[in-house]
């Protein structure tokens, strides 16, 4: 009975979307804001008590069936379910969504009413999609939510419709995530065929007992799906460019929820991943590499949003690596903490940059400590959590849990630990750079800006969570079925040293001129080691050329096969058929085309005429000739007569 409340969780957001997007009547600005906010915050009101009840053990796992579909010999049972992972994830998503919606009320006040309406509609659709995904108890609902998120991401990144850059960024994000989605779909369908059911409770065990090659392929497909959505290497190029979207979009989608969906996927399907050591190893390696790559790239960024984007890439790498080393619960704990501080960082950065004139470069944040103190302090708290300052920040606890799990899980785990540690140092370096720059005194002193409570409220709440949330990490891990690791003391100490080293490094990079110049000159690192450019050269340009060739805009086949009338484009295969038809016409029909028989008849008729012309020559008009003819004829008759007397 209580389970059916689960179905209500995404409903308010979905209803908000329908009202705002499809409702033909005009709504005034207040109504739009109210509807958007209510729809965005209502899920929290539903899932909050449910999750609390579940996590405190008052109610057990719940499943709410949606409906059944009979296809072939299979019965496909759609359902939503509440278990530890989904409760934690849903609560996080709903909470962060509520915070971002409240923040967006103030941040998006520059937008006109139709655009605001579109914004809230899309944000609500996204929230509905993500909640469906985390609460799904079957793979179809899961995939539905997954794809819906991708669609909303496209529309939200390209929210500024008049900007071709934003549109291109949206296209890129959509395309790359779609590649991963195709892999995910393949994995889910194969699992379905293995298990005979779509329920996750039956899919996951079936995935673990599949025969090795098949099972590894399935696990690898799931991994690719997760890597793409979570912007891990090599699918990460879309996230930094996705920062072209408005800040609330970056705060909700591209930091806390959607990009971390891959980690949620991996945490859910962790048994399948862990059942195939090759894939698990690949997961760990992918996660660790991404963590290091993201952190290194982030150090070299000059734009705070891009810095935070690379930071997200790096932090989710941590989560992915955690699943790879066999600690999915710890990964989920980090997901929660990361959601809190990353969305906080984005929102605070948004406030600071708005106050600084709208530019999002780090240098323009100079003096924000004076101009927007609340935002600055919250940003600093978030940065501390990101860097993982020991003991006082939630980030420390979750990151330490990951590092500890890695170190105890075999040789690969130890390598992962080392890489992750290096990444942790770099995290400290880049996390505090904007803080230090913002705290520095600007060239011209800046006045204190008015900070709207709608913006500051969520910031403060999230900052408190980012700091104090560490207390919840261990209980969460236990709840989600993992073991809170008890690392050896040296591991903890090394971790603490790493974070502080990062802080020191950050100070050095900002204030020591030579280092600052080095960082400014690290162009390749800033461009993310030119993955983007290489993908463009390897994949996009040849594809475009292929398309142009096939469309007949270039290439030699057009001259050979001809093109259709009206100057339209053609395609080689289709035009080949047409050319074949035309050739047949030329070879078979055209020889007969002037009617040969008719011509022959007419020529014959003309011949008769000519013969008659020639025959006229016999009529000379001369008596003598007629007489000769008479004589010859007579002679012939006589001979004939004589001849007939032979016998």
């Amino acid at each position, binding site marked *: 009975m209580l389970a059916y409340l689960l179905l209500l969780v995404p409903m308010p957001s979905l209803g908000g979307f329908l009202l705002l*997007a*499809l409702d*033909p009547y005009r709504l005034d600005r207040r109504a739009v804001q109210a509807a958007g906010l209510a729809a965005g915050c209502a899920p929290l009101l539903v899932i909050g008590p449910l999750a609390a009840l579940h996590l405190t053990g008052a109610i057990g796992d719940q499943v709410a069936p949606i*409906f*059944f*579909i*009979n*296809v*072939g*010999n299979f019965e496909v049972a759609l359902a939503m379910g509440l278990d530890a992972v989904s409760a934690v994830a849903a609560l996080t998503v709903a909470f962060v969504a509520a915070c971002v919606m409240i923040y967006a009320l103030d941040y998006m006040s520059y937008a006109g009413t*139709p655009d605001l309406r579109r914004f809230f509609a899309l944000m609500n659709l996204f929230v509905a999609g993500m909640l469906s995904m985390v609460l799904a108890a079957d793979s*179809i609902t899961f*995939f*539905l939510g997954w*794809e*819906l998120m991708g*669609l909303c991401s*496209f*529309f939200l990144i*390209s929210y500024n*419709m*008049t900007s*071709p850059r934003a*549109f291109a960024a*949206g*296209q890129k994000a*959509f*395309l790359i995530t*779609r*590649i991963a*989605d*195709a*892999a995910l*779909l*393949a994995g889910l*369908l*194969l699992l*379905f*065929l293995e298990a005979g059911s779509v329920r996750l409770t039956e899919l996951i065990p079936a995935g673990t007992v599949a025969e090795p090659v098949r099972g590894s392929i399935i696990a690898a497909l799931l991994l690719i799906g997760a890597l793409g959505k979570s912007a891990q290497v090599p699918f990460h190029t879309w996230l930094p460019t996705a920062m072209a979207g408005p800040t609330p979009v970056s705060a909700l989608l591209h930091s806390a929820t959607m990009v971390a969906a891959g980690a949620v996927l991996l945490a859910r399907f962790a048994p399948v991943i862990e059942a195939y050591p090759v894939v698990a190893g690949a997961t760990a390696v992918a996660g660790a590499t991404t963590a290091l790559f993201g952190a290194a790239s982030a150090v070299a960024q000059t734009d705070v949003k891009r810095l935070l984007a690379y930071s997200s890439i790096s932090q989710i790498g941590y989560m992915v690596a955690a699943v790879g080393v066999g600690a999915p619960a710890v990964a989920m704990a980090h997901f929660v903490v990361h959601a809190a501080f990353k969305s906080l960082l984005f929102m605070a950065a948004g406030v600071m940059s708005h106050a600084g004139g709208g530019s999002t470069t780090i240098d323009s944040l100079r003096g924000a400590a004076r101009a927007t103190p609340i935002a600055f302090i919250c940003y600093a708290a978030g940065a501390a959590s990101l860097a993982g300052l020991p003991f006082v920040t939630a980030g420390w606890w979750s990151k330490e849990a990951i590092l500890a799990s890695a170190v105890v899980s075999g040789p690969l785990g130890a390598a992962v630990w080392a890489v992750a540690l290096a990444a942790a140092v770099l995290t400290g370096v880049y996390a505090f750079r904007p803080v230090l720059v913002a705290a520095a005194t600007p060239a011209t002193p800046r006045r204190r800006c008015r900070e709207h409570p709608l913006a500051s409220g969520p910031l403060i709440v999230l900052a408190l969570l980012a700091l104090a949330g560490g207390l919840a990490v261990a209980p969460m891990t236990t709840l989600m079925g993992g073991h809170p690791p008890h690392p050896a003391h040296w591991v903890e100490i090394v971790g603490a040293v790493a974070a502080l080293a990062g802080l020191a490094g950050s100070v050095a990079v900002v204030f020591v001129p030579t280092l600052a110049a080095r960082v400014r000159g690290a162009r390749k690192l800033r461009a993310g080691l030119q993955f983007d450019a290489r993908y463009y050269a390897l994949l996009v340009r040849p*594809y475009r050329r*292929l*398309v*142009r060739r*096939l*469309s007949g*805009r270039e290439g030699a086949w057009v001259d050979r096969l001809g093109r*259709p*009338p*009206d100057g*339209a*484009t*053609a*395609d080689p*295969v*289709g*035009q*080949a*058929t*047409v050319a074949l*038809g035309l050739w047949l016409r030329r070879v078979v029909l055209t020889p007969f085309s002037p009617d040969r028989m008719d011509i022959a008849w007419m020529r014959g008729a003309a011949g008769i005429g000519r013969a008659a012309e020639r025959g006229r020559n016999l009529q000379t008009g001369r008596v003598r000739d007629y007489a000769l003819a008479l004589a010859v004829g007579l002679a012939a008759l006589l001979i004939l007569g004589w001849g007939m007397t032979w016998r």
Partner: protein
Amino acid sequence: MALTLQILLPFFGGFAALLAPRLAGLSERWTTIAVMALTLIVLLLAVVSGDDGRWLAFTRADWAPSFGIQVLLAMDGLSAALLAVSAGLGMICVFISWHVTHRSPLFHAAICWTVAASNGVFLSFDLLILAFFWELMIVPAFLLIALWGHGDREAAAIKFLVFNAVAGLGLLAAVFWMGATSDPITFDAFELARDERSHTAQVLLLLGFAVAFMVKLPVPPFHAWLPDAHTNAPTAGSILLAGLLLKTGAYGLFRFPPLLFPEGLVTLAPWGMALGAFGVVYGAVLACGQTDAKRLVAYTSVAHMSIVLMGVCGGVHFALMGAGVEMIAHAFSSSALFLLIGALQHRTGTRDLRELGGLQKTAPAFATSFALFFAAALAMPGTANFLGEALVITGMFQVNWVLAAIALVSLVVSVVYATRLIGGIVFGEPKPAVQGAHDLYRHELWPIAVLGLCTLLFGLFPQALISVLRPAVEAALTPLLFVQP
């Protein structure tokens, strides 16, 4: 009775639409709408009162007994769904063509006749009658393109005619052979299915049928008529072409090979699936390079119908069910896209994506409709298109993983062309051509709403459609086709 009415009502309705304005002073538009509505009502009555067995309705009557020709009509779930779609699309065509005044009675008559001929194809099981309706379909469609189209419409209409007529010869030849070699002479498909035929004969006959259906489908390399026909056809012509005529090809492939040539199908199915796989990628890649919006959607039709081909040749339950669902879903989504593009062309005078743009600012309802069917074109879960494609892919995984992987490529490439389409129309600063574009009128909005609702309903609550299609799918299963363990 109801089944013959499905054919005769639109047929005579066409004449009514042609003559009504002159003789009775009635509007030919409302006449056509009434005829379509009546057809739909008769269909619904037939479905509701239908039997529970293999066929919902069955009609058999002698016509030329000494030649074995009968009026043999049968309807099951698949045909019923397609008949409903045809009547619905006929009505939508009238609504969307309200501005057509040049020779309007003949225009509406042509719409009726196209619907009548397609209904004939969907219902006939006497092969000669089937071939007759197959050829008949071409004529009113030719008229629609040649008389009311734009651009180089005569050339496009002739191309359409030549391709389809030549392909129809294959069907005709196979039908005549089968009829002539049957003893006593008959064209009854069920009787002919019982005849024993050698393997080679089956393959050859199947090729004859397949050529006709594949050119209609259309599958590369026989698809060359479609882009030109679509670009130069009027909006109603495009809708009928995409929503109806293409489906007749798919229906033919779905229905007749498993019934008449099961062994031949087993032999040719791998080729069919390979051809479908090629068509999926080829159509999608070509769609990415188009600047004419209608041509882009035409190439996506090639891609989607190639998926249907893969499903039909798959032979397993999922693949066939997916093919059936994709048929219906594609009818909705492509009709809606052509409707929108046609409405846009009527307002702005252009279909060129380089000249359009920024529709969001000037016509938000238009933009939202585009966004909805953008999602359908992408096969977003929640739309019926996704259901069809996912079922086909599942079936392909049971048959051959490589084919499934290729079908998945369509999901990825669809992003490129769909974003190209919507980017060229909805995004960006409003271009001069778009500046004065009026938003969707009510008579355009209602068809879009209906089509969108159908897409979403069947995508989110698919059980109804799946149950309706189940008997047809089960009859089309080729038990000789292998299934990977």
